[in-house]
């Protein structure tokens, strides 16, 4: 039972345009969400996060939007650059996860390709 879903395994975007990566979740106990970026042969690196008390968080070219009623979040990258080509993982954490707060539940990832 997948609690965090990234339904698009891949996305291709032209340089300079907007990239929109989507993530859906099923567990209403999730209240903190993170995006990680992963290059091949490297570990994931933290990109941006959002708490459930907000609906938007912005950091430079990256903005995350949260729609709690739809249990949906999205990552917008504007403008997209070739160096943004990577796999992006959405992750969520619940208030209480078997007493183990801080555990992250990851989606399967979306591979973004930004073409020059």
């Amino acid at each position, binding site marked *: 039972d997948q609690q965090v879903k990234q339904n698009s395994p891949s996305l291709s975007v032209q340089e300079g345009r907007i990239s929109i990566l989507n993530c859906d979740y099923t567990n209403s106990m999730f209240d903190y969400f993170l995006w990680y970026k992963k290059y091949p042969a490297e570990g994931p690196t933290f990109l941006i996060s959002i708490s459930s008390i907000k609906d938007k968080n912005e950091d430079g070219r990256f903005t995350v939007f949260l729609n709690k009623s739809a249990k949906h979040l999205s990552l917008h990258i504007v403008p997209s650059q070739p160096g943004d080509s990577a796999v992006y993982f959405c992750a969520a954490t619940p208030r209480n996860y078997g007493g183990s707060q801080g*555990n992250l539940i990851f989606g399967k990832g979306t591979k973004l390709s930004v073409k020059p």
Partner: protein
Amino acid sequence: DVKVTQSSRYLVKRTGEKVFLECVQDMDHENMFWYRQDPGLGLRLIYFSYDVKMKEKGDIPEGYSVSREKKERFSLILESASTNQTSMYLCASSLIAGAYNEQFFGPGTRLTVL
């Protein structure tokens, strides 16, 4: 900057061998995690630890064990490696349990079991 290091970037082992994957973090983080990453499956949690000598099973602990004798070090052990354990193994650490803290990942170990 937080640094999480893993003992090997690439490892090739034979079926039945005992395999040790070591992870060290230098930021005094309480929490440490072991994941494996497989194409189309994302990151799956194997084991985690919130304190020295403490360990808890994640989503896919079968065939693995862990050891945390010191705060900075978290080892993943494959008691008898099998070909279906061929994967990318990622170690991560984060600050305090009970708070929302990002996890910092190591570079990963690509393990091939022949």
